[in-house]
């Protein structure tokens, strides 16, 4: 194992620098896998840019809502220590044993005393532009970064504080602080911290568009950046989520988005890269803005290439264009003019027909690009890592999260512009890489979770506490939350009620615990959002207060309340009361449920022997776990064997050969070639799978599984493929170049056609890799023969991120790019001499052009086949296009809802090699979290049979899908094996004598809920006699 090769005893701690979503995910994965983690964040709270966003694409999830549970988890994790605000000052040592000097800046607030009441901010006389809100409003010099901040503690900003500026005067905050938390005597504290590895996730900063003088961003208030617009849309933003423009707070009727500001531009800035996320966030902002607007907002997006290359992005784009009426205009705006006498803005542009048009808008949003902040570059220099030409951290395609200095890993937008899922993937991947380095030190510094003593409530009558959440204005803006609270107070057994601005915030968790103690509560109801995201958080809270975690009920009054009845506050409030009554009645009948532990098989099963599968296998094996690697074919390597180069120009073959060697020689990896998985039994920690190798079956035991079955290329029926030998697919072109096929070496003219089979109604997705691949091949052809005419016929050129540099290089080398319309495709014909003739309408000239290529490459779609079988066996879902569907598009990109099963590579979605490797490492990290535990918990919501009532009819035995019920011949009754029971309750519904109880969903609880749902109706009937 690598970790043993290190020789020294590594330190079982890791430092994560930067605590946006990437840093938080890396910290959680590391801490969950048995390492102690120091999180160093420059701001006074964690959360990063994601905390500032309103919604996230392509699911339109509320950004804060999905992020908040992770922040809280990070904030309360036993093995995560947050240093904020703090900065890295120096590093010495070697991989496995670094000493990092961190300067922890004075907060001037004693964190132990601060109760986040906000009085210091209220009394502070000094107003400062609020950077969190992009300066659209002001905050005070004493402030909290944002309302849901973790840690939720105030801080004093010494740059603006009058005490520091005026030499000891003011001290208003100190005077009014009720707990004496203000402490002006604090000083910055340097600390030397020992860690085995460092993960850098300091993120990006949005480009400052003041340099685009012709856009007048600095002088025209209604020209805003996309980050400002996020805050404008946000319910917790400067205008409380009312869509108004800054100059006069008028609701805009017409908004335009201008793309590529600070991206793909060497005139105004040095950012030659594409920022990869702006097309999608602009569409999202346009769609959400239209939703916000009362009277039909007009939204227009001015763009160069529409780059919607991620999973479900293309459909999102089509929906915006075809259903939601967002206008898309392909042009780059030269300048913005104020309209005299108004606050409106006029832009002039050439439309696609070449006509000059002028249009007036109420507001313009500049879709600003991503770049690394100068102070972060400085941190990078201190740590001794290299940056690439676009000033992002330098990495190789084959080790996408390894910085140039060993022992330091990078993830997120610091490594290159990217979206949230990609950042989360890389975060998990860097956790895997660090875990691989430090495997020998796992649990050497991490503390074990304390077991909370459970209060015995068996002799107590129910004493229920009900907490009703405002969710800012998400709920309170529609539902009368005070009325719901008061109503809850009238319900039987309810002893305590309270409203919270954000019940999920960390300080409210403390409040809930206190209330449980103060009022001796033994059951808790929270009326807020969905249990899918927030139930674990509250269960953890009540556990800490000594209650069994099942003595809890979450009532969903937001996702299934205020959000779906936005215009009917009274009826929505009525519904909320009914649902609260149902929840209270249900929890009143709830008994504590027992959990027991089961051992974990410390082995992984990886399905697919391509690059992703092999990387995942090595990721687990290097961390010390046994791995079964299953490959259908009789060799390892998959599609990577057919690639010549990565987009960075690295040769793929030596990498794949090395990988195959490492895998086959690894003592922890057992390779099963010519094999398929034919059966899967069991559950997380304890899977038993059957592998069939040429008809011979073997059983393997494993605790986790990673699906990396890859994909296929679409074999087109169009463009004379297989009819004319000069027509190749992209990978066949790679082969032809590799083998110096005369078809290529003697060619005088070559052409590429993009989107063959992709972005079509039957395949409504972009295959993500083809534009870059064709551009790279085009450059190879130009290098082979600079006189060769090379054409790329495309719809949108999607060389996203730093790949844009390749596009630029191709143009400079003379590759000609011709755009075509989806409804006016190139025509490919065979000439009499067997040659090819391609006709395409040049949209700039408006005239058809004829090319006679000696070789034509079709960039055909990446498709998946027959994933259903595996999906069924592991009980995991597929999306409409047949790709595996992860648990959550944004924040759980490699997990499935089914525990212990993970996905990586093309089986998830088309992606280039570097991203597939990162995802494979991420899957390994997530699987390692499972495998590194001593045991897993079972029990909880499971079925139980009352033997006194059971007649032994065995109706339940037959319906149980998991074979968890046995008939006991001697006692003549049935019995549930609770380790196998998954808690579906089918047996309970089938039992003719109602002797089966599904704990947590008992018959009585269900009847009572139904009864209570109509309780008011019943009362009315009774009152009427």
């Amino acid at each position, binding site marked *: 194992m690598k970790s043993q090769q290190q020789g020294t005893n590594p330190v079982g701690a890791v430092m994560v620098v930067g605590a946006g979503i990437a840093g938080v995910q890396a910290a959680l994965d590391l801490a969950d896998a048995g390492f102690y983690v120091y999180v160093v964040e420059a701001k006074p709270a964690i959360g990063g840019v994601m905390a500032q966003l309103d919604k996230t694409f392509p699911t339109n999830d509320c950004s804060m809502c999905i992020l908040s549970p992770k922040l809280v988890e990070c904030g309360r994790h036993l093995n995560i220590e947050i240093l904020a605000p703090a900065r890295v000052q120096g590093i010495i040592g070697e991989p496995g044993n670094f000493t990092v000097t961190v300067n922890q800046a004075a907060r001037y607030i004693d964190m132990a005393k601060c109760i986040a009441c906000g009085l210091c901010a209220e009394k502070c006389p000094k107003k400062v532009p609020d950077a969190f809100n992009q300066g659209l409003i002001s905050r005070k010099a004493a402030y909290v970064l944002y309302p849901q901040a973790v840690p939720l503690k105030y801080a004093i900003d010494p740059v603006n504080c009058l005490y520091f500026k005026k030499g000891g005067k003011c001290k208003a905050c100190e005077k009014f602080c009720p707990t004496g938390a203000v402490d002006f005597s604090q000083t910055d504290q340097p600390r030397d911290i020992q860690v085995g590895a460092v993960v850098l996730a300091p993120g990006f900063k949005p480009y400052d568009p003041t340099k685009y003088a012709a856009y007048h961003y600095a002088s025209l208030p209604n020209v805003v950046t996309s980050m400002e617009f996020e805050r404008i849309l946000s319910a917790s933003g400067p205008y409380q989520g009312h869509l108004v423009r800054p100059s006069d707070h008028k609701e805009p009727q017409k908004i335009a988005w201008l793309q590529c500001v600070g991206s793909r531009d060497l005139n105004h800035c040095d950012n030659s890269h594409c920022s990869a996320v702006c097309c999608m966030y602009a569409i999202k902002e346009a769609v959400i803005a239209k939703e916000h607007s009362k009277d039909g907002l007009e939204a227009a997006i001015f763009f160069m290439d529409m780059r919607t290359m991620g999973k479900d992005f293309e459909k999102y784009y089509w929906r915006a264009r075809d259903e939601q009426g967002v206008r898309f205009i392909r042009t780059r705006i030269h300048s913005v003019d104020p309209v005299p006498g108004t606050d409106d803005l006029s832009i002039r542009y050439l439309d696609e027909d070449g006509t000059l048009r002028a249009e007036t808008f109420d507001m313009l949003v500049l879709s600003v690009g991503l770049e690394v902040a100068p102070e972060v570059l400085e941190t990078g220099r201190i740590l001794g890592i290299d940056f690439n030409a676009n000033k992002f951290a330098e990495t190789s395609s084959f080790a996408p999260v390894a910085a140039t200095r060993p022992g330091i890993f990078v993830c997120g937008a610091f490594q290159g512009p990217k979206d949230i899922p990609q950042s989360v993937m890389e975060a998990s991947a860097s956790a895997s890489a660090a875990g691989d380095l430090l495997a020998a030190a796992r649990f050497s510094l991490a503390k074990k979770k304390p077991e909370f003593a459970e209060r015995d409530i068996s002799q107590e009558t129910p004493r229920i506490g009900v907490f009703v959440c405002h969710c800012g204005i998400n709920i309170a803006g529609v539902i009368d939350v005070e009325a719901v609270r008061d109503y809850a107070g009238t319900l039987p057994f309810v002893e305590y009620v309270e409203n919270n601005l954000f019940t999920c915030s960390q300080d409210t968790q403390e409040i809930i615990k206190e209330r449980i103690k103060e009022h001796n509560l033994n059951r808790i109801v929270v009326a807020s959002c969905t249990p899918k995201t927030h139930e674990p958080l509250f269960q953890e809270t009540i556990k800490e207060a000594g209650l069994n975690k099942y003595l809890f009920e979450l009532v969903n009054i937001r996702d299934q309340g205020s*959000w*779906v009845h*936005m215009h009917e506050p009274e*009826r929505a409030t009525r519904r909320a009361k009914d649902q609260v009554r149902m929840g209270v009645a249900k929890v009143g009948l709830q008994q504590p449920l027992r959990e027991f532990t089961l051992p974990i098989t410390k082995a992984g099963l990886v399905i697919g022997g391509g690059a992703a599968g092999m990387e995942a296998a090595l990721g687990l094996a290097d961390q010390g776990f046994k791995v079964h690697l299953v490959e259908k074919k009789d060799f390892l390597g998959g599609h990577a064997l057919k690639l010549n180069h990565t987009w960075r120009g690295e040769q793929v073959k030596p990498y794949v050969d090395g990988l195959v060697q490492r895998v086959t020689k690894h003592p922890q990896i057992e390779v099963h070639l010519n094999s398929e998985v034919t059966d899967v039994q069991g559950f997380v920690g304890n899977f038993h799978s059957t592998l069939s190798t040429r008809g011979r079956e073997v059983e393997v035991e494993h605790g986790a599984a990673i699906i990396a079955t890859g994909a296929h290329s679409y074999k087109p029926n169009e463009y004379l493929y297989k009819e004319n030998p000069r027509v190749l697919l992209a990978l066949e072109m790679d082969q032809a170049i590799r083998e110096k096929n005369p078809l290529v070496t003697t060619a005088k003219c070559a052409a590429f056609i993009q989107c063959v089979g992709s972005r079509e109604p039957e395949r409504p997705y972009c295959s993500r890799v083809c534009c870059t691949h064709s551009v790279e091949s085009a450059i190879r052809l130009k290098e082979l023969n600079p006189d060769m005419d090379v054409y790329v016929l495309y719809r949108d050129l999607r060389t996203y991120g730093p790949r844009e540099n390749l596009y630029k290089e191709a143009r400079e080398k003379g590759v000609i790019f011709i755009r075509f319309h989806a409804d006016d495709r190139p025509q490919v014909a065979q000439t009499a001499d067997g040659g090819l003739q391609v006709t395409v309408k040049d949209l700039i000239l408006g005239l058809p052009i004829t090319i006679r290529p000696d070789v034509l490459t079709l960039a055909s779609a990446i498709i998946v086949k027959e994933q259903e079988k595996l999906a069924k066996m592991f009980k995991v879902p597929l999306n409409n296009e047949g790709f595996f569907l992860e648990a959550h598009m944004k924040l759980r990109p490699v997990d499935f809802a089914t525990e212990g099963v993970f996905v990586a590579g093309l089986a998830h979605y088309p992606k280039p090699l570097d991203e597939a490797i990162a995802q494979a490492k991420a899957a390994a990290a997530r699987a390692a979290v499972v495998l590194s535990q001593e045991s897993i918990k079972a029990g909880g919501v499971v079925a139980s049979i009352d033997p006194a009532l059971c007649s032994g009819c065995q109706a339940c035995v037959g*319906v149980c899908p998991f074979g968890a019920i046995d008939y006991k011949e001697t006692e003549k009754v049935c019995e549930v094996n609770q380790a196998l029971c998954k808690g579906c309750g089918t047996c309970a519904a089938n039992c003719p004598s109602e002797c089966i109880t599904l704990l947590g969903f008992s018959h009585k609880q269900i009847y009572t809920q139904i009864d209570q*749902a109509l309780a008011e109706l019943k009362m009315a009937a009774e009152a009427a006699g």
Partner: protein
Amino acid sequence: MKEPEFPRILGICCRWCSYAGADLAGAMRLQYPPEIRIMMVPCTGRVDILHILKAFELGFDTIFLSGCHEGDCHYLAGNIKAKKRVNKLKKDLVALGLEPERLEMFHVSSGEGPKFAGVCTEMHERALKLGPNPVKREARAAWLATQPRADIAV
């Protein structure tokens, strides 16, 4: 009570697919009638015929179960068992003097917010069309009085 007691719709959703679909309807801000009450179960397979009968007895006007798509059930086939129970019960409802349209089984995945909102709207419309559940005698009589004679179903 000042609120009208009609219509009342009960939606029983499985935790894995339809409850998440209902959440997505919220995330997408799709509006549907607030007369729906949603009860979450781990799987629609948990729902006993007696639970549904109880809900009708208490006065729900329409009731729907919503589970995963066939083949997607987190517990393999609970949704199919639920569908069988619902189909059987629909036949028996006639004998009880209830229209079978008052009960339906749907399949809504976690990605189908619009479909979930559509299901709620449809069951609301069915309730309006069929009128109050006859167990609510007064409401039923009042509603019947407003209907043209030819349309009276009972």
